[in-house]
């Protein structure tokens, strides 16, 4: 199972020369600023900025689009309800309900913000290798145990996904088709149960193997990241831009 959006021959080499910590901080800073902004014109600008960054780094367009659509599906309910639930000048009426201009504005704001943030997140962090991300988080002084858990989880997701696919294949070989009935739910229950049982056994083997190699609760992370002048430069520029955007938002 592939977790990252990165492709082998993508143009993300350009992004590779920066420190992962910088990419993390950039995405966070960008997200915080975007959430704080109010003006729709500025938000459109921000969305274009995110798209520009995505284009420059050459992230696969179809993957990005698919993930954005998935998110849009989640927000749909909220967006449809908002125009009707925020009081204000009515734009049009639908039976007994009236859609307010303020509500529509709010809905547009949310769409713009969410899209900009997700695009930025996917390009900046989604293209990182999970292990590199773990190391970067560790260097940013997150709790050590959490990082260990993260690295282990990342390692075993692909292994267990294979296990899962093997079990599903076995189910398919016995002509299992998922539908809405007791049989399906029981089979899925047993499938999850079986996965859990096997993974517990696996984890005991892992722990034993690690103890053999002298595991004492600490993984020594060897990272080749080094913070360079250009990382500071990018981060500074972005901070200034964010500050500028926030000020502009206040004065408009």
């Amino acid at each position: 199972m592939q977790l990252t959006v990165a492709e082998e021959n993508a143009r993300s080499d350009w992004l590779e020369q920066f420190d992962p910590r910088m990419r993390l901080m950039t995405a966070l800073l960008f997200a915080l600023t975007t959430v704080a902004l109010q003006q729709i014109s500025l938000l459109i600008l921000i969305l274009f900025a995110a798209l520009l960054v995505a284009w420059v780094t050459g992230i696969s367009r179809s993957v990005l689009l698919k993930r954005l659509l998935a998110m849009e599906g989640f927000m749909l309910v909220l967006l449809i309800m908002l125009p009707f639930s925020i009081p204000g000048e009515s734009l049009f009426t639908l039976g007994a309900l009236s859609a307010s201009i303020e509500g529509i504005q709010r809905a547009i704001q949310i769409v713009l913000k969410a899209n900009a943030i997700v695009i930025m997140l996917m390009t900046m962090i989604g293209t990182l290798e999970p292990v590199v991300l773990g190391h970067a988080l560790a260097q940013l002084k997150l709790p050590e145990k959490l990082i260990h858990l993260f690295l282990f989880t990342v390692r075993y997701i692909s292994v267990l996904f294979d296990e899962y696919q093997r079990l599903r294949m076995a189910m398919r070989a016995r002509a299992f088709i998922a539908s809405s009935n007791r049989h399906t739910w029981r089979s899925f229950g047993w499938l999850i149960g079986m996965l859990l049982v096997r993974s517990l056994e696996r984890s005991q083997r892992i722990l034993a193997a690690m103890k053999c190699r002298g595991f004492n609760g600490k993984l020594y992370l060897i990272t080749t990241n080094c913070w360079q002048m250009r990382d500071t430069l990018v981060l500074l520029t972005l901070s200034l831009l964010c500050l500028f955007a926030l000020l502009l938002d206040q004065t408009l």
Partner: protein
Amino acid sequence: MVATRRLNFERIPQAAVLAATFFIASLLSVPVGPSSVHLILNGLMGIILGWSAVPAILIALIMQAVFFGYGGLLVLGVNTLNIALPALICSALFAPILHRSSGRQLFYLGALCGAVGVLLTGTLVSLSLGLSGSAYLPAAKIVLATYAPLMLAEAAVTGFTLAFIIKVAPELIRVQE
């Protein structure tokens, strides 16, 4: 944070492997009536992982946010609370009774546990939506309604899973002690 400190280093591989399993189980799409849902399984996680469920859920959410773009970076804290708190409540409520029950009773207890987990999460999500502004209230109600089919599927699957585990590997439930 308390939960992280409770995580003994001997338990890290175990918690991680189980967290990965739950991550994969949540990819499973279960049909309910005309639609299909993805399971949360927080009730089950609470029972099996105990306190380790909290960091496990946090990590699963980080991975979803970063690699799939679901959820979001800024609501990570709220989301973790919304899913992990019901998990802890379920583990406190059901884990002691589960040991003493058997057979059919076990299935119903497990089903109840799954349902309670989802119901609490749904309530918390609606609450956090409702609290962020009265304008979001109607949407919050709809969100709560969409949790009904999920609750049904979750209850059935959790019930069967627990019954299966007790039969095949009862030590999995006792892991946390």
